[in-house]
C-alpha cells in the first residue's frame, strides 16, 4: 500500500506543465472550485493542440483573478474589472494570440459589466471564462451581481433583495457567439466545452458555477464545499440548447446547465477586415497577425 | 505684415472655417508668414452662427485669439450682429451683400459681394465661400494672390479644384470693379 502511495506522489500531476509549480501552494481555500476549472481548461488546452506560446490568460482582481498568475502561459493580472478591455488590446495588438479571460462574477459583470456587454456586442475574439461563486470571495463575502435572491452575504446580512443577473442570458442577448454554463462538478462536460470554445471564434462565454465554502456556504449555512458539490449533483439539470431566458438561478434551486448557444457569427476582426477591404480596396493594410511591433533591426 | 486680426462668420454649412483655413494656409505655408486660426467650437458651432478667427503676422503669433478685429467677413446677418462690435475703429466689414445689411460705425468701411448669387450662377451654390474668399483676397490684398490660389487648390476636395479656382477668380473680379473696393488704408497700422 505504501509503495502505491509513493508511486502516485512521485508522478508529476498531469497538468503540472501548465502550472507555475514554484508558486504552489495556491491561495485558494480547500474545496474551492477554481482549481478544478483550471484543470479542465489546461486539459482542454493540451488536447486542442494549440501553440501554447501564443496562448495568453488575462485576469482581473479576485480569487479567480489569480488564475493568470498560476498558469504557465503569458499571464496578465490586470486591474479590477478591466480584464476584458486589457485582453481586447492584447488581441488587437497581436491578432494571432489566443486570448482567454479568466475572472470572477464580481470582476467581470460587477465592476466590469460595461466592458462585458460591449465585448459581447462586438463579438470580440476572446474566450471569457467566468467562475461564478455567487459572492465576493477575496474581499470577504459581500453581495455580488450574481447573488441569488434571499441568499445572505456580508453586505446583505438579512438576505439579498436585489435581482441577480442571469449571465448566459446577458451574454447571449449582447451577441456572444458561444454561451455555455456548467458547474465544476461536470468536469468532462466542462473540459469539452473549453475544447470546443477554443476551436471557435468571437466572444465565447463559459460560466462555471463553483463552490465558495469559506464565505458563500458559511454565510448561508450550506455546509462545506463538498455539500455544495452534492447540491450540484442533485440539482443540476442539463438542457443543451435551452432558451437563455429560462436559465435564471434561484437560491438553492435547480441549476440549468448546458451549451445554450453555438453559432458562427462574424467576429470583430473579421468584420473589420471585410469592411475595410470593401471600402478601401487595395489601400487597406491590415495589422499583421504577429502585431504592429516595429523592430529595431529592420 | 503687422499683426492683422480677422474674423469670418456665417451660418453652419457656408464653409466659414474653410475660408479661414485657406487664408491661414496661404499666408503661412505658401507665403512664408505666420498664421494662427481658431475655429469656434461647442454648441454654437453645431448650430447657426459659426465663426473662425485668424491672426496673421510676419512674426510668430503669440496671442492666439482676436480682440479688436481688423477685418470682419460676415456671411450671415446673425453672425454680423454678433461680432461687428469687436471690429476696431477704421476696421473693414466684408459681407455677403444679399444676406447682410452692413451696419458699421462711422470711420469703419464696408464692402459687399453677392457671393451666393455668383456661386449659383457657377452652378454650385456650395462654392459661395470661395467666391467670398476671392473677394476678400481682392479687396484686402493682404496675402499674395498666387499663395491664395495654391491654398485653394490644395484645400478643396479633389476633382473640384477647377470650379473652386473659377469661383475664387469671380470673387476677385468683383473686388476689382472699383465701386465695391474701398482702400485698405487706415485699416492697418
Amino acid at each position, binding site marked *: 500500500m505504501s509503495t502505491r502511495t509513493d508511486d502516485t506522489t512521485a508522478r508529476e500531476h498531469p497538468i503540472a506543465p501548465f502550472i*507555475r509549480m514554484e*508558486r504552489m501552494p495556491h491561495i485558494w481555500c480547500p474545496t474551492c472550485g477554481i482549481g478544478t476549472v483550471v484543470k479542465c481548461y489546461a486539459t482542454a488546452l493540451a488536447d486542442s493542440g494549440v501553440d*501554447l*506560446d*501564443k496562448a495568453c490568460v*488575462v485576469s482581473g482582481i479576485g480569487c479567480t483573478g489569480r488564475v*493568470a*498568475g498560476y498558469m504557465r502561459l*503569458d*499571464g*496578465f*493580472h*490586470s*486591474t479590477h*474589472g*478591466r480584464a476584458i*478591455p*486589457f485582453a*481586447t*488590446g*492584447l488581441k*488587437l*495588438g*497581436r491578432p*494571432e*494570440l489566443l486570448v482567454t479571460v479568466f475572472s470572477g462574477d464580481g470582476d467581470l459583470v460587477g465592476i466590469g459589466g*460595461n*466592458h462585458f456587454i*460591449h465585448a459581447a456586442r462586438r463579438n470580440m475574439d476572446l474566450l471569457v471564462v467566468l467562475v461564478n461563486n455567487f459572492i465576493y470571495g477575496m474581499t470577504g463575502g459581500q453581495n455580488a451581481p450574481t447573488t441569488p435572491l434571499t441568499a445572505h452575504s456580508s453586505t446583505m446580512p438579512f438576505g439579498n433583495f436585489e435581482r441577480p443577473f442571469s449571465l448566459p442570458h446577458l451574454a447571449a442577448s449582447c451577441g456572444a457567439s458561444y454561451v455555455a454554463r456548467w458547474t465544476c462538478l461536470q468536469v468532462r462536460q466542462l473540459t469539452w466545452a473549453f475544447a470546443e470554445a477554443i476551436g471557435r471564434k468571437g466572444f465565447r462565454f463559459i460560466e462555471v458555477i463553483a463552490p465558495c465554502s469559506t464565505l458563500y456556504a458559511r454565510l448561508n449555512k450550506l455546509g462545506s464545499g463538498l455539500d455544495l458539490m452534492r447540491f450540484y449533483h442533485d440539482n443540476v439539470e442539463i438542457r443543451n440548447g435551452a432558451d437563455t431566458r429560462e436559465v435564471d438561478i434561484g437560491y438553492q434551486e435547480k441549476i440549468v446547465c448546458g451549451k445554450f448557444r453555438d453559432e458562427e457569427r462574424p467576429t470583430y476582426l473579421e468584420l*473589420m477586415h471585410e469592411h475595410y477591404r470593401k471600402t*478601401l480596396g487595395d489601400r*487597406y*493594410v*491590415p*495589422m*499583421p497577425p504577429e502585431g*504592429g*511591433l*516595429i*523592430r*529595431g533591426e*529592420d | 505684415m503687422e499683426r492683422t486680426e480677422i474674423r469670418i462668420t456665417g451660418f453652419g454649412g457656408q464653409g466659414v472655417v474653410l475660408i479661414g*483655413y485657406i487664408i*491661414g*494656409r496661404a499666408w*503661412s*505655408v505658401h507665403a512664408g508668414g*505666420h*498664421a*494662427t*486660426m*481658431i*475655429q469656434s*467650437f*461647442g454648441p454654437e458651432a453645431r448650430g447657426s452662427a459659426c465663426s473662425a478667427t485668424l491672426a496673421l503676422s510676419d512674426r510668430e*503669433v*503669440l*496671442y*492666439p*485669439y482676436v480682440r479688436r478685429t481688423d477685418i470682419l467677413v460676415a456671411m450671415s446677418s446673425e453672425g454680423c450682429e454678433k461680432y461687428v462690435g469687436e471690429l476696431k475703429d477704421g476696421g473693414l466689414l466684408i459681407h455677403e451683400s444679399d444676406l447682410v445689411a452692413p451696419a458699421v460705425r462711422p470711420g469703419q468701411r464696408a464692402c459687399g459681394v453677392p457671393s451666393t448669387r455668383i456661386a449659383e450662377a457657377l452652378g454650385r451654390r456650395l462654392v459661395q465661400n470661395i467666391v467670398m474668399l476671392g473677394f476678400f483676397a481682392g479687396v484686402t490684398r493682404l496675402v499674395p494672390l498666387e499663395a491664395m490660389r495654391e491654398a485653394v487648390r490644395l484645400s478643396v476636395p479633389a476633382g473640384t479644384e477647377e470650379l473652386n479656382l473659377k469661383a475664387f477668380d469671380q470673387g476677385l473680379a468683383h473686388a476689382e470693379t472699383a465701386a465695391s473696393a474701398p482702400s485698405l488704408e487706415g485699416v492697418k497700422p
Partner: protein
Amino acid sequence: MKADPRGVLTGTHYLDGDFACGEGAMAAGCRFVAGYPITPSTEVVERIGRRFPMMGGTFIQMEDELASMAAVVGASWSGTKCMTVTSGPGFSLMMENIGLAAMMETPCVVVNVQRAGPSTGLPTMVGQADMMQARWGSHGDYALIAVCPRSPQEAFDLTIHAFNLSERYRVPVLVMMDECVGHMTEKVVIPPAAEIEVVPRRLTARPPAEFLPYQTNGSLVPEFARAGDGFRFHTTGLTHDERGYPVMTPECQAKSVRRLLDKIRLNAGEIARVEEEDTGGADVVVVSYGITSRVARLGVGLARERGVKVGTLRLVVAWPFPEARIRELAARVKAFVVPEINMGQMVLEVERCAAGKAAVVSVPHAGGNVHDPEAICQAILGAAR
C-alpha cells in the same frame, strides 16, 4: 532607428494641434489606439481613424476611458506601440490603468487635451488645471513623464518624443496639451521619415529560460518580452519580484517602488527639458508652459519696455520637474513669476525648489481663456520691485 515611412505624412501642412498630435503618433510608429470621444481631444483619434487602415494600425472606440486605458496597456504587451487620447473627465477615469501601466512598466502614451474643470467644466474652452493630476492622479507612489506642447508643430514633435521616452523608460508618458493648442491651426512641417528618430521596443535578447521580466541587471529599466514569443512570463499590478510574481512584503514593496521612482528621478537630468531666454542677467524669470508660454512672452515684452530685466523659462517637459535648474536660478534671481491656466499648480513646484531664496509669484487664471498679457506684465513689475 528611423521612422516607418508609412506613418509619416512628410510635407508642410496647415494643421490643428490635435491633428498634428495624431500625425506625431503615427510617425512615431504608434499602431494601436483605443479611445472614447471627448471634446476637445476627439480630433486626434478622428485623424488616426482615417489614416490607420492604410498603415497596418488598429483604432477601436472603446465603451469608456477605463476601457480605453486598459486596452492600451494590454496592447502594449503585444509589442505594438499604442496611445489613448482624452480630456479632463476621461483623464480622471484613466488614472486607474495609468497606475497599472506604471506598475507593470508598460510603454504607452496618453494625450490629455486640457479643458477647464473641475468636473464637466468648460468642455470647449482652455484649461491647464490637470498638471498635478498628471503627476499624482493615480494612487500610490510612481513616477512618469509629461510633456507640454506650445503649438501644433510641437504637438507633432513632442508626441514623437513622448513615444521615444516611453520606450526608453517603460513608463506612461503624458502629452499635456491644452484646448487652445489642440484647436489652433498653424503651419506644421513634417520631415521625411529618414529624419525622424524613433526608439523601438527594447526586446530582450535572452532565451526564455534565462529571462526574468523585471530583472534589471544593474540598469533601472528591465528588458521587455512581449506576449506570444514563448517567454510564458507573468506580470501583475500587485507588488512583484523580478519574476513578475506577487510578493506581499514590505521589503519587496520598498525595492519595487524605489526603482519605479528612481528610473525617472535618477534620469531626470536627461529627461527634463526647458527652454530659456535671457535668464542670464535676469532679475525676474517667468516660468510657464503650453499656450501660456506664448502669451507670457507678450507680458515679458511689456515689462521689458518698462525697464525690467526679465527672462523666460518654458517647461517643455513638466514632469519630472526641472528641480536642479530652478534651484540654480533661485540663487541668483529676485523672483519667479508663474502664470498658468489654473489656480496655482506648477507654481508649487517652483516654490518648493526656490526654497525661499527667491520670491515666487503666482498668476492664476481659472480657465476658459488665456491670460491678459498685461496681467502677466503687472505681476512681473510687482515682483521686480
